[in-house]
């Protein structure tokens, strides 16, 4: 979290929006990752 304001000690951004934005992209990404990882055990005879 670095901005002009950081160096002057001011507030460093809107954490609630940042969290929501990250959840927006991470949740579908984790879904895709889970689907992918579930296929890997077959490689080792699972």
């Amino acid at each position, binding site marked *: *979290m*670095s*901005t*002009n*304001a*950081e*160096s002057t000690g*001011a*507030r*460093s*951004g*809107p*954490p609630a*929006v*940042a969290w929501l*934005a*990250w959840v*927006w*992209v991470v949740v*579908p*990404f984790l*879904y*895709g*990752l889970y*689907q*992918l*990882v579930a*296929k*890997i*055990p*077959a*490689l*080792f*005879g699972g």
Partner: protein
Amino acid sequence: MAAGFLQRERIVAPPGWSRWLVPPAALSIHLAIGQAYAWSVFKLPLASTMLEGNPAAGTLTALPFTLGIVMLGVSAAVFGTAVDRNGPRWAMFIATICFSTGFLVSALGVAIGQYWMVILGYGVIGGIGLGIGYISPVSTLIKWFPDRPGMATGLAIMGFGGGALIASPWSASMLRGFGATGDDPQASGVATAFLVHGLVYAVFMSVGWLLVRVPAEGWAPAGWHPTEAKTGSLITTAQVSANNALRTPQFWLLWVVLTFNVTAGIGILERASPIFQDYFPDAGTQIAAAAAGFVAILSLANMSGRFIWSSTSDLVGRKNIYRVYLGVGALLYLLITLMGNANQTLFLIASMLIISFYGGGFATVPAYLRDLFGTYQVGAIHGRLLTAWSTAGVLGPVIVNAIADAQIAAGVEGPGRYTLAFWIMIGLLVVGFICNELIRPVDERYHEPADSVATRTTGAKAA
């Protein structure tokens, strides 16, 4: 919507705005357009419904994807300058409109039985969205993260790899749910799936253009000063325009580096399943599932390599990381060529590393361009460099498939089918390594006068 809403001047970040909002904005674009690599799930439903009985169904169903990738390279090269001039919100908005419209036109085409509309929609209109969307966040991320440009662009470009991971199972389950697969597949199911894709991606990508901001003039991360960027001999504080970049040997050396690095990776990636089955036929009845697991583990390596190696390049330097991609990559190819199928674990590790270097090559190149040419028109330069991707996308599969098919026709069994192709890959990687060694700082005669780029390099003056 006022035209100014999309312009760069309207999205200058106010004091206190968190730069950590830019990566999710970039990811919302890249995770969406990365769907392109999951196109194959639509092939069978299209072939068994509106193209049923057509002898060219295989080629026709591949056409939207092929055209989309060609349009990616072309539109990134053609619109790169406009992306830099108008800013990331404009670029992300256009990408959203084009990518979503591509699906909607395809949906209409399937609904009324006009396959040319699928080719036009997904391949041409959607392909333009791919190209503009791919480069849209790159220069903005580099400007927000001058202290960690490799990490920032690596994160976004990892998203492009992640897009297919999401779309592949999601699209497949949707096609099942709408009756586009199974014993009695319906074209209406494919049309509905396209329609839902268009609408959902429009909403998902909108977060990108709503959220993205450019840094104000003079902004720098706390505790970081622009002079710190000049830590290596290749890193410039000067600026080079896209047109001038094309006149430098550095651009073309890097073009060869990227082409051969991608060619070497795509050669394995594109034929991963048959390669595994030829190397390890003893997997028995479960060989298809094991090969699918091999494809999955390579996808994971490709994606994680984009973030890990690109972030590492911030620490060790861009030239050094490409030495690893190309030099160690060549040695790993040598290992699997000489070792054959003697050790499955070593084969897996070597393959994963090669593919991670392939992904890393994509993700690190924007930061390499920033080092050489500055941030002035790095998006446009990146767009033009992506023609290397299009070239490698043809070269890699042609080399591996043509040689493997010839070996199969000659009755060769097992790993021997790939020996010649892998030797060619080693040669290409060595050539790429030499080209990387030849890269030197850009000559001063190509630099822009400092006063003409002051506004562009830092986004804009506060609106």
